[in-house]
């Protein structure tokens, strides 16, 4: 179990009558960069949100960093975790959203130090020093006093990545991080993510950027209609897909 940071066994997710995820089986090893691709509505984001407990799994079982997500087991009973226990479990993962979701009433620096100070109870001076290092790492040391409205979409997303990294997560989740960006700003965000991957960070990336997946991913998962259709190395999935639906999707994205 310790080599897999995420283990999903027959995971299902229902929203009322609608089933968004069917029988998801997936192991993600430490240090791996997993790219999830697939048409919209295929459940990619839902899977990511289940790993971070923004959604609750309704069937199967999900482990993150060796802990059962959302429950504590005693004998043959499962006790729902309290809110603070869930908050603690979430600290294993960092999340980057499609729409950035920076805190608009805080500067870039304040966004980055908020978690370390408020949640991890780090001393302020220490948190600021580390936040500055992180902002430099995403190329924004000169923007630390800027409010989100004063930043471009690409800059906001890079601050959001720094904010997630400030919590020292073991796993980074990216939910279509470049989909809300103007095309000329996509490159700067992908460059930061590429850097992060090279530094050995474990990453799960939901993306439509097949070029990024081909270059950076250690494995690609193709999802459709709430199911994992196929999984494999990027060269194989993207160039010689085994399933006609995968081939169809890749052709549609590239056209």
């Amino acid at each position, binding site marked *: 179990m310790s080599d897999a940071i995420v283990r999903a066994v027959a995971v299902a997710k229902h929203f009322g009558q609608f089933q968004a995820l069917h029988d998801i089986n997936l192991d993600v090893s430490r240090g791996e960069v997993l790219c999830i691709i697939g048409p919209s509505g295929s459940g990619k984001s839902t899977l990511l949100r289940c790993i971070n407990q923004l959604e609750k799994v309704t069937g199967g079982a999900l482990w993150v960093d060796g802990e059962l997500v959302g429950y504590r087991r005693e004998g043959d009973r499962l006790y729902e975790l309290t809110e603070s226990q869930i*908050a603690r479990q*979430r600290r294993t993962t*960092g*999340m980057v959203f499609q729409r950035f*979701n920076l805190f608009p*009433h*805080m*500067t870039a620096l304040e966004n980055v130090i908020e978690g370390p100070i408020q949640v991890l109870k780090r001393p302020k001076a220490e948190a600021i020093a580390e936040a500055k290092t992180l902002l430099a790492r995403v190329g924004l040391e000169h923007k630390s006093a800027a*409010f989100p409205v004063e930043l471009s979409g690409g800059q906001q997303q890079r601050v959001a990545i720094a904010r997630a990294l400030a*919590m020292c997560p073991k796993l980074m989740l990216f939910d279509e991080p470049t989909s809300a960006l103007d095309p000329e700003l996509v490159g700067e965000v992908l460059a930061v993510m590429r850097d992060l991957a090279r530094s050995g960070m474990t990453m799960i990336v939901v993306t439509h950027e097949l070029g990024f997946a081909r270059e950076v991913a250690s494995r690609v998962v193709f999802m459709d209609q709430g199911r994992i259709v196929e999984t494999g190395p990027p060269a194989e999935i993207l160039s010689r897909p085994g399933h006609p639906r995968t081939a169809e999707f890749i052709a549609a994205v590239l056209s």
Partner: protein
Amino acid sequence: MLNEPGITDIAQLRHVPRRYWGRTVSAGLILLFLAFLVDAFAHGQIEWRFVGRFLTVPSILFGLGNTIVMSVLAMALGIVLGVAIAIMRMSANPVLRWVALGYVWLFRGMPAILQLLLWFNLALVFPTIGIPGLWQARMVDVMTPFVAALLGLGIAQGAYTAEVVRAGLLSVDTGQYEAAKAIGMARLKALRRIILPQAMQVIIPPIGNEFISMVKLTSLASVIQYSEILHNAENIYYANARVIELLIVAAIWYLVVVTLLSLGQAQIEARFARGAGRRAGRS
């Protein structure tokens, strides 16, 4: 296309602006009417020296102090209740939701003056109040004009504030809740650090408005003998029959307090507008 011979650049000729005769005439009429009003009050049956004399007598200043104290306390009670009710309204627990709904329905549905009278006369229903075996008191001793006014005004205000706070909380994007959770924040901390500061931008303008209403609403407490400024002004004119002069005294003080509050509101709004306004591109 018409071609006006000789014009090559409109900037070289003298421009005669258009005249707005209607505006000029109506402005003139309004000024005339205002001059008439000022003249009427200056020469009417008002002894202005009485206004000057009573403006700062102890009884009026004491009433002014009570008006301000009651406004602040009733508003504070209203905000505390309003935030609590708004959070209950958005709870997943149906009992809490229904209690919140019932509270707003009840206390928004009755006139404030009626609620004041109900609280003030509570002794008719419950002659004594207390915790059995521990403490007991007669209701008439507990329900003083001050307590009745505070409960009546504060609880009614809570019903209005709850709706304002709820609108503010709903105005914050759900992505903000998710981002706060994603950095490991628990619900209350996220509410306090992330959601409420943003909701404040929506909450502050109507709350400022309600505060100004509250200052004037405290005058209702005069009917239950709370000694606020209008009550004290009335007591003076019952004795000396200078009715209009003392009403003008009270009016002046209300205007002063409301003016100061309006200035304060602008300051607070500016503080909570942090990070908004200067839009430098897409959101």
